């Protein structure tokens, strides 16, 4: 029973971290149809900035998250304007893969040149570092915080996409970009805003998830595949899909690591192969024209 509860908490927290980082990528792939392998690199920038803000500038945790998100978005703007715009929607996946791998390498090189090639810790404030009593059991407060962050992110995104005018334009562009353009929706602005939103969510997830996916020099490369896999399993562009895929893969990975640690990521990828083979568009994906 103890071990089931431990697995459940860890799997839920891990799944939520995956969700927060991957949902940005998912929206981006649903709208711009770009296989962005550099998404983890922007999450890494967020993590490095937060670590720098807390350890060298003594900023409080909340402010550090804000610095990380805004900083990552600012850094991403030239990449969007100069490179990503070329590969939205039309290029074949190979070109997109190569360009975004190139961007990842450049970011890894530059980040490690500036901040030094070592593991970057993001110290938690006291309120989040101890255990928390949830009635029948003690769980680490940070896990609860991460799970809450994931749920709030999902809720806010759902409100944004379903209930606001921006959401309506976004959905119109996803369904039929050219028609949306013809009806007077400035799709290039929608693209740019979505890109910034995706990067911001990635950076946010990178910071709050740093306890589970530690920020280190090769972070972008190590988790490059993980985030892409979550999106592919869930179906690009779907919040429900990304959430369920994150939780499912989080569960598969955590259970595998608890019960058969020597197998590493075997169960994770076995699950992925089975799901992608059965549902090539992902669990909640839609076919694209």
């Amino acid at each position: 029973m103890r071990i089931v509860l431990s697995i459940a908490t860890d799997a839920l927290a891990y799944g939520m971290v995956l969700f927060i980082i991957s949902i940005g990528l998912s929206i981006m792939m649903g709208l711009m149809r770009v296989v962005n392998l550099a998404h983890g690199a922007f999450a890494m920038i967020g993590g490095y900035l937060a670590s720098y803000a807390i350890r060298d500038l003594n900023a409080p945790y909340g402010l550090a998250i804000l610095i990380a998100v805004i900083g990552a978005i600012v850094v991403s703007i030239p990449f969007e304007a100069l490179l990503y715009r070329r590969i939205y929607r039309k290029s074949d996946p190979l070109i997109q893969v190569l360009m975004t791998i190139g961007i990842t390498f450049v970011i890894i090189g530059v980040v490690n040149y500036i901040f030094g090639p070592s593991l970057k810790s993001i110290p938690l404030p006291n309120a989040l570092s101890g255990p928390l009593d949830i009635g029948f059991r003690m769980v680490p407060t940070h896990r609860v915080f991460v799970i809450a962050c994931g749920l709030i992110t999902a809720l806010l995104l759902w409100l944004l996409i379903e209930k606001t005018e921006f959401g309506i334009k976004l959905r119109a562009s996803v369904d039929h970009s050219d028609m949306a353009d013809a009806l007077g929706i400035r799709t290039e602005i929608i693209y740019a805003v979505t890109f910034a939103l995706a990067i911001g969510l990635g950076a946010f997830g990178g910071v709050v998830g740093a306890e589970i996916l530690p920020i280190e020099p090769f972070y972008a490369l190590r988790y490059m595949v993980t985030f892409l896999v979550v999106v592919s399993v869930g179906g690009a562009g779907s919040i429900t899909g990304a959430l369920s895929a994150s939780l499912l893969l989080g569960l598969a990975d955590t259970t595998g690591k608890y019960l058969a640690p020597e197998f590493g990521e075997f169960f994770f990828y076995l699950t992925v192969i089975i799901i992608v083979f059965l549902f090539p568009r992902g669990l909640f994906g839609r076919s694209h024209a």
Partner: protein
Amino acid sequence: MSDSATPAPPRGLPMIPEASGALAIIGLGAIGYFLFPDDLAFLTRLIGITLLVLSLDLVTGYCGVATLGHAAQFGVAAYAAGIACVRGVTDPIALLGVGLVAGTMMGLISGALITRFRGLPQLVLSIAVGQLVAALANKLSWLTGGSDGLSGITPGKVFGLYGFDMYSRTAFLFSLGVLLIVFVVLSRFVRSPFGLMCRGIKDDDLRARMIGVSIYPRLVVMYGVSGAVAGLGGALTAISTGVVGLDSVSFERSAEVLVMLVLGGAGHLWGALAGALIFQIFEHIVAAANPFHWMMLVGLLLIGIVVFAPRGLIAPVMALATRLARKGDA
């Protein structure tokens, strides 16, 4: 890339592509052997990876399959050859055979899974298959040595005559011979009706289906051939270096060979050859100094290639060669 899809039939002398490929490899090999006798171990490793890049070219360049898990074929064959050697099969030719068979099997399995889909599911499946193999190689440590790597591979003499020495002379010449044969066979193979049909599938799979081609079996067979080539590369690497580590099945290896292929130019055997050569020599020099500078350089190079020369470095050279050949005919 479509203008290169139908190479002009060679007029006059037959077998010109095969002969020029063989001459180029012998020439480059001679330069390596006589001018850089101290770097033969590195050059031998380079040849092993070059075979993997050629193999990737068959599926990515000729069939348009985007894959980030091609190291699986290479690594499985390397492990198979290594394990066979440790268990008592020491003849290098037999070990190559083991690698060939293992690579082909792995290629057929991956191909059967990966080529069913196109686009994102295809890419993700290729990654997942590669990672699955890597996780297994780590887990089955009684067989593969796990994270310590498989060591103690001491192959016997080539043809019972030439032993492997510490200067890697035999290993280098042996690898060069394998590369030569593979390159000549492949340059014939890619111009065969089967190879041309694969190009047709890549350029327009709907049209290929309309003229009655069943696509899936062809792609799987091509994957098998590609696996065989990768398997030879893996077995050669295992024989010549004496160790097989987890890096030979890693995601980084898969990504790296894709970079090499695109750098040189996918869809040309010459492009694969040039890309593998240029990339690895630069890596050998720069990465030793600072790995992060190397990553930045590769990243910039990759972005530059995609933006300015999506057909690779070989495209302008090939265009020049074609023009010169036309002028010669006229």
